Every structure is written in structure tokens, then in C-alpha cells.
């Protein structure tokens, strides 16, 4: 906030140095654990079990990845996660933007009623209806299916309002003139609004992608058949349930860490885009509601 000019003098310099150090320490609490995980995942099984501070692979090899992939069949939960994430995210974005588009018409009869209808769903935490949701899924024969996971959180009030905010930035006259040219609502929505609100689409897509990839409560509730497990549930079984040495056989540390690394890769891959769009989305979502 203050200019460089003002920052001469040893007191200011000392403060700036301490401040930078403070942030460095915070960063290290994030960097060191991940470096540790990465290094261990590329170490040999026996080396990874030694009590030692590991920030570089010991006895470098990819045995951890081989075991986690071939013996522990992590490709199956990985595939399930990919399916649920891709289908769920696509549908979520499409349905939420459809509803968001509807709300840009200020004179639409019944608009207020529909907004209230959506706001109420936002007031009720998903967790509070966990038990009846389980019953509903059971009645629909969706327990132990990936469909249950796709349906969980398929639409959200948050995304609808977020999309609406992005659509509101598009001048209304555009759709008016398109209508005079004879274009229907669906066409205007698909060809104009979705294209012009690309940043909004990207934001909601990323939010949803991350949310679905990390989805945990729903799969824990709806799945008991281990062939349907998603990555998070499989990881939990592999990493956490075995660390209290109750597992049937010992999973070495390098294998566990390899599992963690595999599950993080998709998230790191989209991180550059996240940086670009999240900020905007978070602020839009928090300011107007």
C-alpha cells in the first residue's frame, strides 16, 4: 500500500524481512509435506519404511506406482472417479446454466417464487438430509451405482446464481434483437449466452470438477461394493485404514504415497486454469447472493 520511498529506515526493513520470513515458513508447511510425499513415492519399499527425513527419493524406483496400479488395481477406482467427475460436471454445468439463464428475465411471472424455491435448497445443508437421501437412493435402487454419485449435487443453487451473475453482464439488447430475428430461447441460450459467458462456464466447471473429484461423503454413504469405489474412498481404505496396522497385509509407505500422488495429478493439471478463474468466481459468489 505504501510506496517504496516510505520504506527506508531499518525498522521498515526489519519488518519486511520478518514478514517475508513468516510467509516463507507458512509456505514450507505446504511444500515440505508434498516434497516428502513425492520423494517417498519414488523410493523403494524398504527405504520408504525407514525412519528418516526424506526429501529426495532413496533407492529411486517406481515400484510404488507399479504395485498401486497392478496389485492394488487403483485403475478401477480411478476410472470410476473419472466417469463420475466428467459426467457429473458436464450435467451440473449445463443444468445450472439453464436455470441461471431463466433468472435474467426480470419480468418473468413466477420468478420470485422460483428464486425462493432455490434459495431454500441453499439454506438446508446437504448433510442434514443425508439419511433421507440415503433412503431415496435406496428406493430408486441407486445404492452401489455410480449414478447415485452423479445425481448427488447434480444442481446447486450456488452454481445457478453464479451463472446468472455472469449472464447478467451480457447486454440484454442482444437477446432482444436475436428474438426479433426469430431465434428461440434455446438457440439464444446455446449460441449466444453460453459462448459469451465462457468465463462463467469455466469457473463453474472448475469448481464442480474439483468438488466431484474430491467427493467423499456421498460415496461413503452410497457405496459398499468395492468395485464401485471412487478414488477417494479407495485411497482412504488404502492410506488411512492401513496406517493403524489393521490391514490384512502391510502396504508399504511408497505405495501409499504413490496413491496420493496419482490422485493429486488431475487437480494440479487444472491448477493454472483454477488460478485464472477461481478468484473471480469466489468473489462473484460471495458478493452477490
Amino acid at each position, binding site marked *: *500500500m*505504501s510506496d517504496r520511498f516510505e520504506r527506508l529506515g531499518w525498522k521498515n526493513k526489519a*519488518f519486511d524481512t520478518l*514478514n*517475508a520470513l*513468516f*510467509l516463507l515458513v*507458512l*509456505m514450507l*508447511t*505446504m511444500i515440505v*509435506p*508434498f516434497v*516428502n510425499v513425492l520423494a517417498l513415492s519414488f523410493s523403494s519399499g524398504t527405504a520408504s*519404511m525407514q*525412519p*528418516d*527425513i526424506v526429501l529426495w527419493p532413496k533407492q529411486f524406483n517406481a515400484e510404488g506406482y507399479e504395485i498401486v496400479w497392478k496389485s492394488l488395481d487403483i485403475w478401477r477406482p480411478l476410472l470410476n472417479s473419472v466417469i463420475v467427475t466428467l459426467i457429473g460436471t458436464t450435467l451440473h454445468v449445463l*443444468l*445450472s446454466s*439453464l*436455470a441461471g*439463464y*431463466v433468472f435474467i*428475465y426480470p419480468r*418473468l411471472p*413466477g420468478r420470485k417464487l*422460483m428464486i425462493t424455491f432455490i434459495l431454500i*435448497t441453499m*439454506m*438446508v*445443508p446437504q*448433510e*442434514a*438430509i*443425508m*439419511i*433421507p*437421501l*440415503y*433412503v*431415496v437412493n435406496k428406493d430408486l435402487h441407486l445404492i452401489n451405482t455410480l449414478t447415485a454419485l452423479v445425481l448427488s449435487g447434480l*444442481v446447486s443453487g450456488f452454481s*445457478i446464481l453464479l451463472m446468472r451473475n455472469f449472464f447478467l453482464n451480457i447486454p440484454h439488447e442482444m437477446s432482444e434483437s436475436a428474438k426479433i430475428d426469430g431465434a428461440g*430461447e434455446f438457440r439464444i441460450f446455446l449460441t449466444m449466452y453460453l459462448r459469451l459467458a465462457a468465463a462463467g462456464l469455466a469457473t463453474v466447471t472448475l469448481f464442480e470438477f474439483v468438488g466431484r473429484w*474430491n467427493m*467423499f461423503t456421498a460415496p*461413503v*454413504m452410497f457405496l459398499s461394493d468395492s468395485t464401485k469405489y471412487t478414488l*477417494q474412498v479407495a*485411497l482412504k481404505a488404502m492410506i*488411512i485404514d492401513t*496406517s*493403524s496396522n489393521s490391514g490384512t497385509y502391510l502396504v508399504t509407505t511408497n505405495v501409499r504415497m504413490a496413491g*496420493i500422488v496419482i*490422485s493429486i495429478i488431475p487437480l494440479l493439471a487444472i491448477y493454472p486454469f*483454477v*488460478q485464472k478463474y477461481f*478468484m473471480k468466481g469466489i*468473489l462473484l459468489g460471495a458478493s452477490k447472493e
Partner: protein
Amino acid sequence: MKILKRYGALYVMMVPVVAYFLVFAYYPLVKGLQTSFQDYKLMGDRPYVGFTNYNAVLHDSTFWDAMVNTLVIGGGILFFSFIAPLILALSLNEVLQAWYKKLTQMILYVPHLLSWVVIGGIWIFLLSPDNGLVNMLLVHFFHISPINFLSDPTLARWIVILLTAWKEMGYTCILFLAAIVSINPSLYEAARMDGASRWNQLIYVTIPQLGNTMKVVFLLNTLGVLRIFDQVFILRNPTVASKLDVLMMYTFQKGILEIKLGPAAAASFFILIITLALTLVVRRMTRFDEV
């Protein structure tokens, strides 16, 4: 007719969303209320039993343990998830080098993107008494015997609270930073004219100007308190379960694991009512200050 012709397509566009919310939000809500008054079995008769389920929950000491845990852990998370990002934002704001600021933000945001399974898995390992990094460092530098963090009830609660604050601070700090950036620069100029030091500018300009954002963050955090689940589910173990299990965990255990759906539904409604009450109170409180 005219309305239908003009707006018909828009109503059609709303149909899937309305249908979804009816089946997966409103119906479960009603169904849950109904279930809480029933002796609910997955098969056969489901007689209404009045307030029996609610009574059973209120007389269950595990429920009260869970309530206490929720208040203690939730309160801790509420405090630290508020103060940590605030300090972080203020600290970042003082950084002059744009690249360093950007780098810090980029790195501190990462834990928010990762699931509790990953975060919990990493920290359970780091904190383990056998070959965890934290204990190795402690033993190396302070020559103490390894601490079993997650087997000690008090420590385990602290770990849950601090890890949650740590995971989310990079995210929440964005809200504060955005608010700081939008503070009118002339306020700082005026303060400097009056000879205000950096510290004074922070205390008398920046922090008061953040009032509204603080309210928003506090409100958002309050809503999350009763929903704490993933981190507890991941970090708990039989030794500390009675000191960690929060209300959501109680519902999960009753409903999904023990299949006592009636009492579980009753417990859910307590959560719902408390959440709504808490929301109202916080809204009232934050609005009061605005007048």
C-alpha cells in the same frame, strides 16, 4: 396464453432443475421429518411412534458427547479459520515484491484444492510417532520422546482444528485481499499526511475498512460449523473417537452403519434446527452493527 407464448420456453428450461430439487432436496426433507417420527425399518411396517426417536437421541450420552465435540471443535475452527486468513491477507498486503506475493498465494491455495483424504493421509503420516517427519524433527531438535498426536484426545482436537484452518486459509484470504485492494487509496494518503506509520495505517485504516468482509467470512464459516464431517471421519481412530466425533459423525454412525434410521433422522433435524437458528442469530448480529 400470451405469457406462455412469450415465456413458455423459459419454464421448460426450469423443469429439470425444479424436478431435481423436488426429488433430491424437498422430498428428502419431508421424508426425513416423517422418518424421525417413525419406527423406520427398511422392510415391513413403519409405525408412527411420536417423539420416541427424539427422546432416544436426547437421552443418548453419545449424542451429547457429539454435541460438545461439535461446539468445541466447531468453535475452534470458527476462530482459527477466521483469524488465520485475516493475518495472512494483512501480511501478504505488506509484501512489496509482486512475484513473492503471487507465489505465496499460489502455494497457500493448493491445500484447499485437495481432498481431506489426501490432506489427512499426508498429515497422519507426518504426525505418526514411528517415522513421521514432525516427530523426527522434534526429536532431533528438542530431544524429546515422540508424541503420538492423534492418540491424545486433546492434541487430536487441536490437530483437527488447526489442520482445517491451515487447509482453508489460502482460500478465505482471497476474500480479505480483494477487500483490501478495493479500499479507497485516498484514505491511506490522508493517513500518511497526518504522519501515520505503517502500523497505524493498518490499525486505523485497513482493519476498520474490512468490517463488512469480516462479517461475510464469519457468516460463511458459521454455516459450516455443523457440517464438519470429512476431516473427522479421516482423522479419527478408536482411541480418540469419543473426543472427535461430531454431530454429523453421530448421524452417519446411527443411520448408515447401525441402520437406525428413525433416531438418525431425528438427530439430523436437531442439526438442521441448530444450523438455521445459528444462521439467524449471526445474520441478526451482523446486520445490527451496520445500522
